[in-house]
């Protein structure tokens, strides 16, 4: 999936940088267009969300609860809470207004507002995804540069093989294997959660406890994502190897290391930056399985729990947030690229 997605993103980027020079308007216009199209996409997500949960099922009330033994009274109550008796456009308008007010409904399981549940789960996910993104980016790009620059070397061959295995691995499987070996048999790490039952203590001790719990899920996400970055970085660096400007740089008498650092890498970095930004949104939803395996109390686990409850308002809320995350991350990546790469800027 990721592969196809990446190819698609690359094709889109190439097209943007290549042919899209229709009426070379200013930078501000380009930015406005991009922000607007992101807003439209977000709106489409809202519409899709609305239809998915309320209109597609023949009987939304029953579907929402997944319970066929509701009394007529209960059905009526649910219909009223969700405003399901109203005409569709009105329902949609209500839904939009509520969503923009941050009201995502109440959980079927514990009656808490969904926005509150999401608020609680947000910080653990940001911690986990943030840490692993930084690690996987740095390590992945480093492996890609080192391997691609000395193509065919022993480091290149072994790292490519290693990375290919990682790439083919389901992340939750890796998580479970680490869990039963490092956490189970060897008992080096806790078997899940974010804090010890005792609370982990306060101050520095509490922080150490948090890191100790963070280690394994973070390792899994880092390993799985660094594979992609390493592969992309390696191939885009190899694509640059034959470029004339590298020959020029060498002819100037630059050391090999400087040729790499000052000339080759900055040019080869662009596809990786695009991918990393595109992934940033996806990692949040991609953490669903990892968070589940390690009982990490983040958004991914929240959506897994609400999927199996089933707790539709919560599921709907997390889905909306995941979609928004991808769109926003994508927009930021696009804007950064527009600002930094003159080839894209002119388009």
């Amino acid at each position, binding site marked *: 999936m990721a*592969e196809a997605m990446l190819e698609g993103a690359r094709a889109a980027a190439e097209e943007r940088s290549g042919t899209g020079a229709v009426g070379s308007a200013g930078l501000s216009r380009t930015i406005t267009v991009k922000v607007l199209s992101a807003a439209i996409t977000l709106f489409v997500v809202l519409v899709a969300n609305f239809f998915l949960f309320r209109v597609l099922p023949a009987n939304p009330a029953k579907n929402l609860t997944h319970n066929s033994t509701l009394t007529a009274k209960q059905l009526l109550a649910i219909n009223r809470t969700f405003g399901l008796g109203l005409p569709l456009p009105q329902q949609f308008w209500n839904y939009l207004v509520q969503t923009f007010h941050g009201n995502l409904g109440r959980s079927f399981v514990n009656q808490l507002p969904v926005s509150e549940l999401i608020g609680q789960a947000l910080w653990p996910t940001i911690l986990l995804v943030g840490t692993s993104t930084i690690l996987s980016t740095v390590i992945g790009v480093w492996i890609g540069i080192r391997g691609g620059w000395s193509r065919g070397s022993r480091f290149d061959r072994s790292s490519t093989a290693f990375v290919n295995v990682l790439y083919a691995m389901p992340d939750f499987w890796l998580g479970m294997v680490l869990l039963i070996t490092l956490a189970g048999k060897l008992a080096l790490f806790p078997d899940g959660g974010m804090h010890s039952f005792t609370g982990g203590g306060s101050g520095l001790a509490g922080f150490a406890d948090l890191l100790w719990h963070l280690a394994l899920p973070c390792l899994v996400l880092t390993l799985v994502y660094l594979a992609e970055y390493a592969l992309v970085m390696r191939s885009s660096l190899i694509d640059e190897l034959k470029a004339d400007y590298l020959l020029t740089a060498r002819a100037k008498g630059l050391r090999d290391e400087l040729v790499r650092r000052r000339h080759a890498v900055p040019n080869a970095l662009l596809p990786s930056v695009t991918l990393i930004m595109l992934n940033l949104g996806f990692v949040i939803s991609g953490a669903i399985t990892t968070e589940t395996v390690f009982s990490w109390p983040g958004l991914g686990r929240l959506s897994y729990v609400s999927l199996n409850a089933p707790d539709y308002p919560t599921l709907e809320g997390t889905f909306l947030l995941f979609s928004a995350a991808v769109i926003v991350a994508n927009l930021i990546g696009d804007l950064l690229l527009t600002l930094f790469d003159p080839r894209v800027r002119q388009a």
Partner: protein
Amino acid sequence: MSVRAATSTSDGPPPEQPPSSQALSPRALARARRKAALVRFWREFRRDRRGMSGLIVLAVMIAIALLAPVLANSRGLNPIYATATPNAGPSLRFPLGTDSDGRSVLTELIWGARNSLLVGFTATLISILIGALVGVVAGHFGSIRARAGRLTDNLLMRATDWFLVVPFLPLAMVVARTIGPSLGVIILVIGLTSWAGTARIVRAQALAVETRPYLERAKALGAGHLHQMYRHVLPNVMPLLLANTILTVAGTILAETTLSFLGLGDPIRPTWGQMLGAAYSYGVGTGNVVWLLAPGIAVIIVVMAFTLVGHALEAVLDPKLRDRQ
């Protein structure tokens, strides 16, 4: 990407050795040319050692999947007939041990290969069909100067971009949950959400094909849009599509694993993902470790094999890519 292909076009540049007889009909000529191109393609592919090893692994896996009824009695999948000790380690009778219901893990693994590959191939088929259709139509009409053409291209690409950014996993979870868990739903959901990348690639290639002289000739002779797309654009996009298909299968198999792991599959038809899900829910780390290890390793092997074959195909089609390996 300059695909050195015209490999299967009916109107491409002349082949290396034109078939000798003049009496051959144009159709027979085209067929002979295609055959020659295929032979050349195979000869190049065979030289790629990694691609070949991937192909052999795939052949073995597909054979196992097809022969599942012969290799393992499907009755072993029914917990009612499973009388062995649950969650027991490997033994002579059960080489990979048993699961929490006392079923043989080996039997499940073999039938899992059948179902996982089935999902992988059918979901890919859906994804590729949509992707190719959208890509060819957008590429063809995008190359036309008329405003209607541009509009078609633009609309299709906006839709593609949306599918490119919508987070696949939550969407699939939501859809599968609203419709109900089954293998068919998983196939459909994966197929319907994974075509965007293919559409992008195909469109780019179609745009390149559109500038070739033989399309101008076809237009001059009065060929309609359908004829142009079907007889000229599609055949030229085909080789690229093939490589993309193989790579997509790797992705869909991984996607299936995740969805089944989350409990969205059909419990009666085991896939590797479902085995992993069950191993997680009912016994991770207790008793039979092979129950967890075997399906995961199977997934890795199959996904890697597809990736290797896909990259080898790409390298044959675009020799520039060979440098990357």
